[in-house]
Structures are given as C-alpha cells and as structure tokens.
C-alpha cells in the first residue's frame, strides 16, 4: 500500500498541465458566461433567489446582496467585480503565479460561485472543484517530490467511471440504446442539434452498439487503465467519448475538464520521458508544459543533426 502511494513521482509536466489546464478552462468558462452573470446570480436575475436558497454554504448571490447593502456599489457592479477577481485568480493559476494560499482561496471562492448552491450548476463545476483540489495538493514549488496525489487522482477517476458505468448497467436502457438516444434528444438540444440525430434514429442497432460501448468503456476503465498494454487505447477511447459528448450534447466545458484530468492522471504520468530526467531531490523549479515540449523538440532536432540527447 505504501509503495503504491508513496513510491510514485508526480511528473512536473503533469503538475504543470493540471495547473495550466484547470486555470485556463475555468477562466475561459467564466469569460464565456460573463454576459449572463447578472441573470443567473444578480439580485434582479431570472428568479427570486429566496426560491433557490443555498443549503450548503455561502452562495455568491448572498455575498453580492451583502456587499450591495454594505456599500454604495450597485449589485451588478459588485457581481462583475467578484467575477473579475475569479477570472484573475484562475489566470494566475494558469500561469503558475498563484501560491497555495491563493489556490485554497480560489477553491473556496469557486465553491461560493458554483457548488454552494447547485441551482445553476452542472457536472463541470463539480469536476472543476475537484481539479482545483488536486491543484492545491500539488504545489508547483515541489514538482518532483514523491506524493500520493497522483494515485489519489487516478483512483478518483476510476471511481467516477466505475459508478458512471454501474449506474448505466443497472438498468436496461443503456444496453438497448434507449438511454443514448434520449441523451441526444434532450429538450433544447433537439432544437439546436443537427437533423442527423433524428435520421440516425432509424437505425436502433447503431444506438445499441453505442450504448454498450459506453457501458463497457466506463465499467472497464478501473481495470484496463492500469494495464500497461491497454492503458493508451482505453485513454484514447475515453477521450473520444468525451469529445463526442462535447460535440453532440454541447457540453464542451465538462468534456474539456474530464479530458484534462484523464491526461494528467494517465498520460503525462506515464510518458517515457527521455528529455527531462526526474530526480526527487534536485528541487528544480517547474516550467510551463509548453517549455517541456520545446525541450523535447530540441532534443529530437539534436538527434537528427547528430547532436547529443538528454
């Protein structure tokens, strides 16, 4: 058990990708949401907030109301200021300039926006919180230390997919394709979706195969992702599944977060790295992930030109 958790080195490239990816995705998501913020979280928004009161902690709408009462700042302005703070913190995280107390604050701040009240939240917000939690547990100042966090993230992903698969396998509708068909035909989505979805409804066998593939992929994830020979293929298939979810269900952000977590846990961690040797004691400061790519490209160029390799 101790060997499993404590003999692994979290590669600096994985840490870098986690911080950069999480910060960038959360910042982009919020920038895209910016025009609708007052409608969702403002006092004159879509719905009276008393009807969607937060049972799990301090919601951002409560903070905005409090700030508006306490100061002369208009509620919408207070909301935009808090949103700007959230975006700036995420950008700092993405460029590796946010120390761990800042990440802790960002995690709690993310909670006040999204997870303290789930009225206007969806899966991507919760997975974003998990990604921030793992950012908090993997400080950039010690990128090459032996840490159990990689194993924790890997096991967390296995639980996500196993229970996702189990929930699907317990009923019959994922086995006969009905659930996949319903997922593609959700309200709102239908009006925006290409008519090819309706056309594909003429081929039930296709949906059955798709549903079974999803169930097998998710149930098999905790097993085959650990086997060296199947890891890469299972990872590719999982990334393909999330790409499909993004394209056909419009859940771009959710899919991007899942792909990021998968790449951090099972791609960057298992790279056969000959360009950047990792020594737990060297204390080398981390670089952005693109710097590692540059070094890899330089190494390949040196090899072609008869130069040295790392």
């Amino acid at each position, binding site marked *: 058990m101790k060997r499993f958790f*404590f003999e692994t080195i979290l590669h600096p490239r994985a840490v870098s990708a986690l911080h950069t990816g999480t910060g960038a995705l959360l910042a982009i998501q919020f920038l895209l949401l910016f025009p609708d913020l007052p409608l969702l979280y403002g006092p004159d*928004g879509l719905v009276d907030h008393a009807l*969607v009161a937060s049972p799990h902690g301090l919601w951002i709408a409560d903070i905005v109301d409090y700030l508006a009462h306490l100061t002369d700042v208009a509620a919408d302005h207070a909301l935009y200021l808090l949103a700007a703070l959230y975006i700036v913190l995420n950008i700092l995280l993405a460029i590796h300039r946010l120390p761990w107390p800042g990440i802790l604050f960002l995690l709690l701040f993310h909670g006040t926006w999204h997870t303290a009240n*789930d009225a*206007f939240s969806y899966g991507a917000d919760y997975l974003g919180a*998990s990604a921030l939690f793992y950012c908090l547990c993997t400080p950039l100042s010690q990128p090459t230390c032996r840490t159990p966090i990689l194993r924790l993230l890997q096991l967390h992903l296995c639980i996500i997919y196993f229970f996702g698969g189990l929930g699907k396998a317990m009923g019959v509708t994922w086995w006969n394709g009905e659930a996949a068909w319903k997922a593609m035909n*959700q309200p*709102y989505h239908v009006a925006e979706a290409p008519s090819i979805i309706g056309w594909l409804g003429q081929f*039930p066998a296709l949906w059955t195969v798709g549903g079974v593939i999803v169930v097998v992929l998710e149930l098999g994830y905790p097993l085959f992702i650990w086997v060296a020979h199947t890891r890469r293929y299972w990872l590719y298939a999982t990334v393909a599944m999330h790409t499909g979810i993004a394209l056909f269900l419009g859940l771009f952000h959710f899919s991007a977060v899942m792909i990021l977590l998968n790449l951090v846990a099972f791609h960057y961690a298992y790279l056969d790295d000959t360009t950047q040797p990792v020594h737990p004691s060297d204390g080398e400061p981390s670089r952005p992930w693109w710097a590692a790519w540059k070094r890899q490209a330089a190494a390949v160029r040196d090899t072609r030109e008869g130069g040295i390799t790392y």
Partner: protein
Amino acid sequence: MPRRGHTVALTAIGIYLAQVLLFSTYACWHNQLEYADKATRPVPTTLAHIANHPVFTVPAHICGYACGYGFYAPRVGSHYLTEFRIDHRDGQATIAHYPSLSTLEGRVRYRAFTDLFGGLLPAQDGLVRDRELPRRVARATAKSLTQRTAARLAATRVSCRVGAWYIRPLRPAPVDTSSHYLTLFETDIRP
C-alpha cells in the same frame, strides 16, 4: 516521509476515498432511493441520511465530489422545458425557451436548473417522498421566472408553459421523428 507521516497521509486518503465512494453510491442508487420503502429497505434510506449530513456534505461540495457519478453522470441534462410567449408593447409576440440567456454556458446552466420542475410530475404508486413541497417550489419558481421576464422585457403579457419532454422510443422506429412535450404547468402574467 517518516512512517508516522505515511500513516497520517494514508488515513486521510482513506477518509477522502471513502467519502467519494459514499456519494457515488448514493448517486447511483438515487432513483431507487426515491422509491424506497423505508420499512423494508432501510439501508438506502440510512445511506441518504448519512450522505446528507453536514459533516459529509460541506467537504463534498468544496472538493467537488458531492454531485456523485451515476446514470447520466454527472448531472448533464434535464428533461424539462420552459416556453415563454412574450407580448411586447409594440404588439408583436415572440416565443422563447430561454429567458434572455445569450451564452451557451448560461443555457447549459439553465437546463440543469430546470431539473427543479421534476417536482411538478404527478406522484406515482409506491412513492414515499412527500411531493407537495417540491411541487409548490416548482410552481413558485415558474411564476417568478415569468414575472421577472415580464419586468425585464417590459412586456405587456408573458405566458409560461412548463413541460416534460417526451422522447419517442427508439423501437419500433416510427416514421414521424418529431418530439413534443407534456404540459405540466402554465402561468400567465400581465404586469
């Protein structure tokens, strides 16, 4: 890391993973829990009580595993629909499904929000959970949505219809591929 440090870290990891498992199990059984008979199936009900205890829910919401991972994992859509008919001051009328939301992200969030209208569904046999409060909250929410839409757009009249989406079954595949929805609630506001 010294041996004591290992033990502490492993204990923390164990507690964390146990909580993730708890919430995932709860989410996986959520549908069954809704129809659970408390007298004959005490285990799922106990699980619900544990999962809803603040000691577990607060860290779960902060760390993001509170949503659980289940059938449509995790919480990616809704089968409820709102339709607003807006009569403007210039005499024109428009139909909208999203009340003024312009971004894809905002609309995805609104779709998750409409899960709340599940409270309007008629009670079924064997249902233990009290449906009255969710129904009242859903009606009040629909009215609030309509009132605020009318005020925001300065409309002379706004009607809102909340429906449950009906998806035609995959088998046998009919020629008609159109979907429609079943109206659950209607409200009409004239400010």
